[in-house]
């Protein structure tokens, strides 16, 4: 038995450490531990702030999930005050959210995850002519030509962003990669186990094609976020305002924040996103994923087989309130009704159980809670007690590792506290969240007849699942709750969100055309219009999954603020009653071929799109540490024996 530690796990956002116990004979992982190694504490900084400012400060929790936290925050304050935002503000926020999802998924797949699947070293053996032919074949075989509703606004005559399929192009990329590899300074390709057997699963031409697209997307991803720059002034951290959006619309003022010229930029970015997903991301992903599935790699499902959670996505029209206190309007007109929990999907959809998620559930102190039994926090009474986020407490209690010093950890204490993440629960149980959860929920609801009057987006999700099942020759139950399924549904979600982006852009244009240019509701702007005390929750299906912000307002100030973020759901420490979180279970369902090079562990953890930073430490059967593998791009790869 080896104890393997990866700390930090890189190519993610933030700080994550994992420790696994590996049986060297079978490669089976017998225990796995996921630890968030950085203190957040931003919730404490929100205390006593003006609730109208919180979005600006809390958004700085992260530079990758930029816009997501601002959106959840303004929604929380608007829920507390019962503010109905104008139609245009709802459309614009939805465009910004869909834009984030498209850009975030593309960046994650190409720049944070692709190098677990493809290697620049393998690409050197590729024949440029064969790669050009492969590019054509991949587009023919793996493109899923699904689209959103028909649109009257068609500003592009042809797809502008189409992959190059010439031998000259691939030869030039190959020369570039060769020069990097031969220089010995791998730069962006440093810190990886390039001799791992997984890289031999794919032919060299797939490696070269995907590496070429990796480089292409470095450029393109920048242009995808321009709607944030137009509507919010910048990216990262675009600007919002409680009650709507600050970007006033006028077709009569040349100096207006939003006019036809500005909308043209947004239109271009949206169309670009649609083409990039359809011609690069989905075909690349499906070509790689199907090879893995055909090689029998359908592991790493973990908690997805047992329990997934979604909040529901995209309010189609203006609404009042999220929780039942605020009116619960959010849930009444959703484009994607993935609000709910699906249990036991791994046993087939017939045996799966669906539980609805309602506005009342948000205010019920029994439904959503966080506990800190294994987290470096203390609660006023008992650390194992569940606390509803409105009554949440952020009180640090660092206890150090099991082996090592407080600053130099060798092994964390799985019996005690070992993470800066709390353990969030739904009715006392742990859940996986993210694109995979959304697809499992919609598929299960549809199969059980729980989706009357399906929206175009829900239909598209079912069509996508059917197309991939057809391609892989497997039923959805078999491929969805796996590492490949988690990665594939992110690509499907990207295609879906590219169309959602277009859908809300068309709605925005139609509404402006009808004469409505309002973007902000200032009725409750002044503090003297507010109740003495109120509470609100803002929810958002972020790229990584269910995100919620909870605010308790007293005398016009923030009395308490809590964020329950997707990565907390997935990467949380274990719980004596509820068991392991999604990362830990997924790692425990993954076979490690070479314990010194736990690529499979890094790959399955990255399949969640972790929003934190990381390393793997390895221990043998006696619990002796074998290696600490550091993959920090700044200090370079090093293996401590």
């Amino acid at each position, binding site marked *: 038995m080896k104890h393997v530690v990866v700390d930090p796990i890189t190519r993610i956002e933030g700080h994550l450490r994992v420790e696994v116990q590996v049986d060297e004979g079978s490669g089976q992982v017998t225990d796995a531990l996921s630890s968030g190694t950085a203190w957040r504490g931003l919730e404490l*900084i929100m205390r006593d*702030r*003006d609730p*109208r*400012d919180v979005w*600006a*400060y809390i958004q*700085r929790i992260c530079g990758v999930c930029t816009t997501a936290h601002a959106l959840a925050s303004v929604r929380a304050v608007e829920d507390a005050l019962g503010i109905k935002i104008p139609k245009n503000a709802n459309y614009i926020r939805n465009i910004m959210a869909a834009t984030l999802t498209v850009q975030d998924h593309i960046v994650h797949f190409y720049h944070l995850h692709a190098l677990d699947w493809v290697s620049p070293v393998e690409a050197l053996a590729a024949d440029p002519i064969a790669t050009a032919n492969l590019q054509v074949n991949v587009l023919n075989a793996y493109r899923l030509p699904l689209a959103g509703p028909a649109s009257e606004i068609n500003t592009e005559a042809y797809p502008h962003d189409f992959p190059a399929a010439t031998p000259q192009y691939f030869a030039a990329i190959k020369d570039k990669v060769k020069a990097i590899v031969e220089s010995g300074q791998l730069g962006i390709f440093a810190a990886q186990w390039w001799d791992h057997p997984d890289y031999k699963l794919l032919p060299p031409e797939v490696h070269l094609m995907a590496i070429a697209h990796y480089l292409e997307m470095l450029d393109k991803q*920048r242009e995808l*976020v*321009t709607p944030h*720059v*137009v*509507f*919010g*002034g*910048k*990216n990262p*951290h*675009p*600007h919002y*305002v409680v*009650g*709507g*959006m*600050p*970007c*006033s*619309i*006028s077709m*009569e*003022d*040349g*100096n*207006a*924040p*939003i006019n036809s010229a*500005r909308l043209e*930029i947004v239109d271009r970015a949206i169309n670009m996103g649609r083409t990039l997903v359809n011609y690069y991301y989905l075909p690349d992903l499906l070509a790689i994923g199907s090879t893995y599935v055909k090689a029998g790699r359908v592991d790493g499902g973990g908690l997805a087989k047992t329990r997934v959670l979604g909040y529901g996505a995209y309010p189609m029209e203006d609404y009042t309130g999220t929780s039942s206190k605020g009116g619960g309007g959010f849930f009444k007109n959703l484009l994607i009704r993935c609000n709910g929990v699906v249990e036991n999907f791994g046993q087939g959809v017939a045996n799966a159980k669906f539980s609805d998620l309602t506005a009342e559930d948000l205010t019920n102190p029994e439904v959503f809670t966080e506990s800190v039994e294994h987290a470096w926090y203390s609660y006023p009474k008992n650390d194992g007690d569940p606390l509803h986020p409105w009554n949440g407490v952020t009180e640090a209690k660092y206890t150090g590792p099991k082996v090592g010093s407080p600053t130099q950890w060798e092994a964390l204490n799985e019996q005690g506290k070992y993470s800066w993440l709390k353990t969030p629960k739904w009715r006392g149980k742990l859940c996986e969240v993210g694109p995979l959860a959304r697809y499992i929920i919609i598929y299960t609801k549809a199969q059980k007849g729980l989706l009357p009057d399906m929206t175009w987006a829900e239909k598209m999700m079912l069509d996508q699942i059917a197309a991939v099942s057809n391609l892989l020759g497997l039923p959805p139950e078999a491929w969805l709750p796996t590492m490949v399924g988690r990665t594939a549904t992110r690509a499907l979600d990207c295609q879906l969100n590219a169309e959602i982006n277009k859908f809300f852009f068309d709605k925005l244009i139609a509404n402006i055309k009808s004469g409505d*240019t*309002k*973007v*902000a509701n*200032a009725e409750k*702007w002044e503090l003297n219009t507010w109740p003495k005390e109120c509470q609100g929750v803002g929810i958002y299906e972020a790229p990584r999954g269910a995100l919620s912000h909870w605010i308790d307002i007293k005398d016009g100030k923030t009395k308490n603020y809590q964020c329950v973020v997707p990565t907390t759901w997935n990467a949380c420490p274990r719980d004596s009653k509820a068991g392991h979180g999604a990362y830990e279970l997924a790692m425990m369902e993954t076979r490690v071929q070479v314990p010194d090079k736990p690529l499979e562990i890094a790959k399955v953890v990255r399949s969640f799109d972790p929003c934190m930073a990381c390393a793997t430490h390895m221990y043998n059967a006696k619990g002796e540490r074998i290696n600490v593998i550091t993959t920090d791009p700044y200090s370079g790869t090093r293996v401590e024996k």
Partner: protein
Amino acid sequence: MTGVIMHVALFGSLPPLDHDGRPQQFYGNRIHDTCYRRPFFDAGMFAERFDDAGAKAGWCLYKLGCRGPETYNSCGNLRWFQGMSYPIQSGAPCIGCSNPHFWDEDPLTERMPEYGPLGNVDKIGAGIAAATAIGVMAHGAMSVVQKQQREEAEAKAKGEQVNK
């Protein structure tokens, strides 16, 4: 960031830095001085509320809490995404996110906060206006006195001449 990397790529050295170690090229100007809405400030044309007529017309956001007058950054001259926009251009007042005291300067949507014993910008402005008025009056008074003195002196001189 990109500007610094490009500078290193082009010139092989770090760009000139200010006393806080920040590249001068990007932190040398106040947002207020590079703001394309500055003429509206000078003309006293302000958005009073989010999404009012002034906001639609792209007038100055000072009264909505804009921190441009105290923030040194290049948002105004470079703008984000190769000149596409920056918060003010998108209708959002600058929140001074690169200010050392950004985290202590809320409420962000109220006009700029107190500056020590001098008070806020309005009070400082009123003070300056009052001081100017006093100055003008003093100047006027002095001028009158000086004029009398001069005339007296001239008259005296004339008298002396006459007497001669």
